[in-house]
């Protein structure tokens, strides 16, 4: 898993450092159709975070982790919106995931008054929003008069102070004189307040009369996990204790829409 992540990141870095400057050196084409738009744009769109990964240490019990939805919103600044090659920076707010789990406990492991064969807990939790600033290299290719395809790659710094979260599932006996905590999950984000990530993406731009509209698919790979933690299944009637580690990379696939207004006519 780590090897795949490393591979992807290194491919991205190679694209950023070697490939892009070489191509860049070949041309500094300008697109007249894009000259009339402002450098600033508003950015927003949904994102889908990768599911968390479990690393069981002992025991047979485990649980499911689901991908989580989030959002990106903010603004971007394209240094040369009318050029084939440019750089983009900006400021993005995102909703950060913590967990989205489905935990199943077998009937024989809890008090006898439960009638279902399998008891299920579905829970999800988001942390505070993060603030991030990307610096991206962007290539624009004209497809038709008003349509452009673009590719982008670069780095992003995210401000996300450290924090922790926990989830537990407790069962009571029929007359509520006794309780057993059978499942617990405790996670925490890294100690450092800033986290780095690698960004890669592609999309298209459509130039309308008053607006330059862009839609991009991006994939963001963090240099370190967004959340680390551990889980424990315990106090069950039949099954033995299970324990393991929880790792949420915080990597995500994002659909990013951005809109830049046309300048007033006297400005261009």
């Amino acid at each position, binding site marked *: 898993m*780590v090897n795949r992540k490393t591979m992807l990141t290194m491919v991205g870095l190679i694209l950023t450092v070697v490939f892009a400057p070489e191509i860049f050196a070949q041309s500094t084409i300008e697109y007249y159709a894009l000259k009339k738009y402002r450098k600033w744009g508003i950015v927003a769109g949904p994102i889908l975070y990768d599911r968390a990964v479990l690393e069981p240490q002992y025991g047979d019990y485990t649980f499911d982790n689901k991908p989580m939805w989030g959002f990106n919103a903010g603004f971007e600044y394209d240094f040369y919106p009318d050029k084939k090659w440019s*750089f983009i920076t900006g400021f993005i707010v995102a909703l950060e995931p913590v967990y989205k789990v489905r935990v199943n406990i077998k009937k024989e492991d809890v008090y006898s008054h439960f009638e279902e064969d399998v008891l299920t807990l579905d829970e999800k939790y988001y942390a505070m929003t993060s603030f991030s600033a990307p610096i991206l290299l962007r290539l624009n290719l004209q497809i038709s008069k008003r349509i452009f395809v673009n590719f982008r790659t670069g780095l992003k*710094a995210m*401000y996300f102070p450290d924090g922790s979260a926990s989830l537990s599932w407790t069962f009571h006996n029929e007359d509520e004189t006794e309780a057993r905590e059978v499942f617990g999950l405790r996670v925490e984000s890294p100690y450092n*307040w*800033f*986290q*780095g990530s690698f960004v890669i993406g592609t999309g298209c731009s459509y130039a309308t009369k008053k607006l330059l509209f862009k839609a991009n698919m991006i994939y963001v790979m963090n*240099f370190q996990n967004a959340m680390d933690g551990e889980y424990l299944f315990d106090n069950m009637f039949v099954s033995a204790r299970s324990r393991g580690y929880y790792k949420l990379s915080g990597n995500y696939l994002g659909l990013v829409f951005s809109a830049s207004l046309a300048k007033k006519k006297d400005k261009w």
Partner: protein
Amino acid sequence: MVKKSGLLKTMVGIFLTIIITSGVYAQADKEYYTLKKYRKWGLVAGPALYNRAEIYRQYGDYTFENKPMLGFNAGFEYDFYPDRKWSFITGLVIALEPVYNVHYHIKIEDIYSHFEEDLIDSFTSYSMSSFSTPILIRLNIQMKEKVFISFLSGFKVKFFPPYEALLIYSISNEDNTESREIFGLNLHSHDNLFHGSFVIGSGISIAMKKVLLKTNFIYVMNFQNTFEGEYQFGNLLTSPPTRGDYELSGNYLGLVFTVSLAKRKDK
């Protein structure tokens, strides 16, 4: 205090990068004719001075001193618009990563009686080299015909696989029949292979006939510590054990020399 100060600096840097540069940039797309003749690629090299490690004592009275460490940066850079007032720089840089530079002082009453004075010693260690790629925004301001001042700001990603280091110091009695481990330092870098950092800097460029020579001071602030771990003084004859945490940020002040050749005339 250390954390807050680092955070403040980084936030100020990010603020400068995003807001100020973008705003100022919008005012001018100036080009410098003098710089048109140089290549976009340049060779980079220079010394780096890493900040001293911090220690946080948990219990006990002993402590030790951490000194700043010298390293180096070497590689190449690519300036997308060398002749423009505003440009972007990327590249590939190799650096020697520090682990520890410790100086400690053990009192004579805590060691075997054949020692005639306090035990004072120091150890330095570097880990493997790291590979990093910056993405920097660069502002060039012309001072004279051939002299420019530049300001840099941006991010850097560093490839630095997990690494562990251990320093153990033992002393033996006079006839070597007994030994005591009196100091230990156990360190590790983070599990992640890539580390992010914020870069800020300033310098001067001199346009010569065949080369463009740039000299920049940069300060690199890592998003996470390069090394963390713990230290222990123990098995001392008189003093009780001492234990604490060790943190090396890996932040450094670098002096970076860059040389870009002039293009051939037919180009």
